[in-house]
């Protein structure tokens, strides 16, 4: 696949030596339940470069979310390790932002207060965080809703607020766990477009968990495909489509070649 420069051009300049690097080395995860042990991840190794948008694609229940929980510091691997910015992940960290499957906004706080929650818990300068929050909300088209409560927003707006919350502490890495899976198809496509715009401006390393092939191809520099449990890396595909990509991109032959290729891999995984 040609034109790799399109991808590198999208990378932001000036990122430090190891900041934004995500390294997974020989990762094993085994869950112990009353019915015995389940191996969720087996010997997974992958390196993600700073500023890359990487999707992790796999059948449901394959351990994609497990990978994200480890990166977020919410779960310890049984073996191997995950390093972010050259440092082993031992717990939640300020340089890692997380966007969850559900927006998980607190209904008793307005949008601004919700977005500022990480700044509060991390003990950041609140005045500076407030300014940043307003900038980010403006970028996400939510600046007029800063004083609104979550139940006054649509699902798509709530999820955008969730993304802004994930970006508030200016993390080098943003983890996203199927953030659009609860949205309807139309909103979903618009959100993909908006996420691309936000990513191109913010320039973060993004680890994006999804089970949607077009979503992964549309958004990513790289798509990692995991096998069903125990999760192993079965494909590491670089997506060479120039940015910004638009919804028309999705019907171009270059795009459909990628989705076809990934579908074929999925079909093989079923057997």
């Amino acid at each position, binding site marked *: 696949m040609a034109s790799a420069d399109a991808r590198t051009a999208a990378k932001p300049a000036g990122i430090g030596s190891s900041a934004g690097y995500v390294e997974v080395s020989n990762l094993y995860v085994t869950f112990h339940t009353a019915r015995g042990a389940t191996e969720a991840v087996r010997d997974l190794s992958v390196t993600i470069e700073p500023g890359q948008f990487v999707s992790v694609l796999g059948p449901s229940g394959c351990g994609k979310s497990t990978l994200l929980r480890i990166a977020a510091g919410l779960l310890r691997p049984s073996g191997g390790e995950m390093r972010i910015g050259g440092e082993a992940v031992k717990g939640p960290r300020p340089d890692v932002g997380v966007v969850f499957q559900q927006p998980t906004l607190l209904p008793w706080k307005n949008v601004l207060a919700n977005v500022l*929650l990480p700044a509060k818990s991390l003990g950041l300068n609140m005045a500076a965080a407030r300014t940043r929050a307003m900038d980010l909300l403006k970028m996400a088209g939510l600046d007029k809703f800063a004083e609104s409560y979550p139940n006054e927003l649509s699902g798509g707006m709530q999820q955008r607020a969730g993304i802004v919350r994930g970006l508030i502490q200016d993390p080098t890495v943003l983890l996203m766990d199927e953030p659009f899976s609860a949205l309807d198809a139309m909103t979903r496509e618009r959100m993909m477009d908006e996420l691309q715009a936000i990513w191109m401006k913010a320039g973060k390393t993004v680890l994006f968990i999804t089970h949607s092939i077009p979503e992964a191809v549309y958004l990513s520099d790289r798509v990692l495909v995991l096998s069903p449990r125990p999760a192993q890396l079965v494909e590491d595909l670089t997506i060479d489509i120039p940015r910004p990509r638009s919804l028309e991109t999705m019907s171009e032959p270059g795009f459909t070649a990628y989705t076809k290729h990934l579908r074929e891999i999925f079909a093989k995984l079923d057997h």
Partner: protein
Amino acid sequence: MTSKLKDLMYPLATAAAVILVWQLSIQFFHIPSYVLPTPLSVLRALETGYIGGVFWQHLAYTMTSTIIGYVVGCGLAILVGALVSESEVAEKLVHPLIIALQSMPKVALAPLILVWFGFEMKSKVIMVALVCFFPVFVNTIVGLKQTNPAMVDMAKAISASRWMIFWEIKLPSAAGHIFAGLQIAIVLSLIGAVVAEFVSSSRGLGYLINSAAVTLEVNVMFAALVSLAVLGIVGTQLVRYAHRKLIFWEGNLSSTVKE
């Protein structure tokens, strides 16, 4: 405006019907006034009682023990409920005690409490606090346990402290349940106060009912009952109002309030 007026019409119509049936049955069945007083004589008892009479001091006495006991009992219930739900050890220790006490009618403890804490205000307050404690305590624990685990995960991912998770996420999540408990407790608190006064007291609406029973002043008994009903209604409405104002994010409140 008109719908508000209509909402008020129905309970008023019911009240009018009850009073009418009451008055008519006295006339038709010749019920003597020492068994069932006429609505008018109850009204007169209320009038003489509250205008220059002794009712105010009885009302004040019952209200004082009820309010103090309610605040103390509910406050302790929320505090202990929070501790128990946050600590697994505390929960295991307290659980059997709760089961044992929950199924016991608390009013049966009234004579014992009067023996232990004297016959004045203190024992009434303790009685009220005791009956208020359980519904609020149980609802606090249930509410805190029902916090959306995704929200707790989110908080952990942003390095929120345990205190912050409790204060900013779990407690607001539980607030609806806690208010349902507070609603039940307001009714129970009056029961507790009146029962304590029945057992032994020289003041209060419970005492008033008891002493009027001795002299067969049935209209005074009814007047005291009406006073208690008004207290109960006002208390319930106040808690309901606070619920609506404080827990503004929960849309339909009537469905969450258990009575």
